């Protein structure tokens, strides 16, 4: 058989297969929807997988209260337009106690508002499988994680004790209380994601496009300071042409200098990038590594 077949078509077919396996093998799956570009691709693939039917599981957004307003607006419009069922969960207790990265430190803040909230929601709704948009090229501990990644009753990952994963035979067998995290985009790179968004015309949050923003330079990142409370002593607020390569919480997500105004510009930028996108995420660079956070249940 000889057919021209692009790498994006191959990745799409594989991801659709994985998403269908989740529905076939689990009682109550959910898709973790972070509003970012990878989530946009994931939801698009889920629509493709079950066409002409609707997506047979809800989307779950773990809201920390620190997301960009543009993200929340996009979330409402996008999920409504495609008719998806959306669940929003917040760790209200931690939010009421005023959890903030400046107060708690980044690791503890993420632990409460993201990991804690996620585990709460999985338990509350009794989800036994959670589909996420993480990719193996993002970070080196993720390079070793399985597509079907087992979590114990406490939501924790044990990297030394992972099931072998061969061919496309995904073992979704679990005991009571355990759950599975599933990563259909494991084999995609940032560049693949952007090329696919362009090819398929997938809607994304406008924050990915460059515009002038008020930012401060902190560590190695341009951090947006839409909220004056986020400015620390000694920092100077400047206006720069920037865009976001990844989207997280406002106080902890860095922007990059960019003039990319169209999807074509972004694809070109992703192809020529010399720094990884996770570099702009403050959470990845503390003493607490991604591997540590994943062991605790972080995505």
């Amino acid at each position, binding site marked *: *058989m000889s057919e021209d077949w692009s790498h994006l078509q191959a990745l799409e077919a594989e991801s659709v297969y994985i998403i269908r396996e989740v529905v*076939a093998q689990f009682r109550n799956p959910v898709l973790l929807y972070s509003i970012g570009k990878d989530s946009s691709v994931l939801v698009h693939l889920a629509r493709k997988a079950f066409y002409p039917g609707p997506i047979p599981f809800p989307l779950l957004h773990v809201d920390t209260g620190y997301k960009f307003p543009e993200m929340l607006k996009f979330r409402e419009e996008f999920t409504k337009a495609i008719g998806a069922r959306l669940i929003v969960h917040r760790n209200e207790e931690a939010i009421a106690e005023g959890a903030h990265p400046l107060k708690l430190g980044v690791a503890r803040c993420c632990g409460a508002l993201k990991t804690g909230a996620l585990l709460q929601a999985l338990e509350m709704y009794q989800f036994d499988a959670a589909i996420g948009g993480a990719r193996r090229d993002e970070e080196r501990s993720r390079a070793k994680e399985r597509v079907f990644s087992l979590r114990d009753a406490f939501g924790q990952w044990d990297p030394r004790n992972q099931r072998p994963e*061969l061919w496309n035979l995904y073992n979704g067998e679990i005991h009571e209380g355990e759950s599975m995290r599933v990563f259909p985009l494991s084999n995609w790179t940032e560049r693949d994601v952007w090329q696919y968004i362009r090819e398929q015309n997938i809607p994304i949050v406008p924050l990915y496009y460059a515009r002038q923003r008020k930012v401060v330079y902190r560590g190695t990142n341009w951090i947006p300071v839409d909220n004056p409370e986020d400015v620390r002593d000694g920092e100077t607020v400047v206006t720069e042409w920037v865009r976001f390569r990844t989207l997280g919480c406002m106080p902890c997500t860095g922007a990059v200098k960019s003039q990319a105004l169209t999807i074509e510009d972004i694809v070109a930028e992703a192809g020529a990038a010399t720094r*990884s996108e996770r570099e702009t995420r403050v959470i990845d660079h503390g003493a607490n590594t991604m591997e540590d956070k994943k062991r605790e249940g972080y995505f």
Partner: protein
Amino acid sequence: MSVGLLRFITAGSVDDGKSTLIGRLLVDARGAFEDQVSAAQRDNERRGGKGIDFALLTDGLKAEREQGITIDVAYRYFNTERRKFIIADAPGHEQYTRNMVTGASTADLALILVDARQGLVTQSRRHAYIAHLVGIRHVIVAVNKMDLVDFNKDVYDRICSDFKAFFQQLGPLDLRFIPISALQGDMVVQRGENLPWYTDQTVMETLETIDVEQQDSSHLRFPIQLVNRPPLPELGDFRGYMGKIASGRVNLGQQITILPGGRQTKVTGIFTFDGERTTAFAPQSVTLTLAEDVDASRGDIITGIDDAPAPRTQFEATVCWMSPKPMKAGGKYRLRHTTRLVKALASGIQYRVDPNTLEEQPNPAELRQNDIARISVKTLLPIACDSYRENRETGAFLLIDDNNDTAGAGFIE
């Protein structure tokens, strides 16, 4: 197989420069970013090393960086103008045979590294055998550290002929050799100036241009993943069979057989999100509709009417044992074959294969982790399988134990 995507595995012995080679491919093709390279550099300096240790770039887990060994399979990605590449980087030690089998299971090509000073060693034999077992049909032997043998052509030629002789015992295959110095970069991405007597392609050129077109069976095999009956009134009694075509092609109007039952009917629709199709081929994911309301569900396989395999409840297979809990004859498992899960009995162990010598050791008492052996399997319900040599998708299976662990990987004879 996809023209735009090449999946390959790298295998090598301890200290043969595998990490250096991967690091060079990644950095030169921008599969590794500057901040990731500097993180690896910081880790190395923290340990008292100098410069970049490429292994720190690929070894993702703390335990691996601390012990300086690759434990698990790591997947790495890079693109060039011509292709996207997925590297499964597997450890070379004997106690990690199962990891190499895992990494190889999705690969189209194996890149086997050998140290020019050592030549064909025991480990190389095992790597070649595993590549063959897992059905990889394209092998590149990269003879590394040519700089340490003065780029001597005689040394290289001798290693090539040793490998050819060994591979001949295994069967036909597309076998290529490239002399390289991963450290200095000769014949990896750049040609360098030290190997003027070698006029063929570099490693990167070979990876970019090698033809790994689907060579699996052209027979239609469509394992049903799910039956789609959308709860939407406008779709009426739509009943779609969702799956990924494992091999061959399906055409609108075609007569098909549903296995293991054997009922025949006709394809009335090939649905995708991007429109209805008149034909679809492996490895596409599609949804089929059939002429009658037949009894077909997850685990059944749709095939053509002339080339349907006879469903079986007994077969011979080679297994690679994955679990630390040994397998004994009479062991009961769940067997995962395509989308079907059935109860199975490992009814007998004929012999164990020594992957270093290919020697067959008859009647072993049990199989331990990393053992490779010929066994007999009985299943409670029939499965529609092919031999692994003919079809890597419908000839493969997993054995899952009481603890839900993936205990064994099987290749049907």
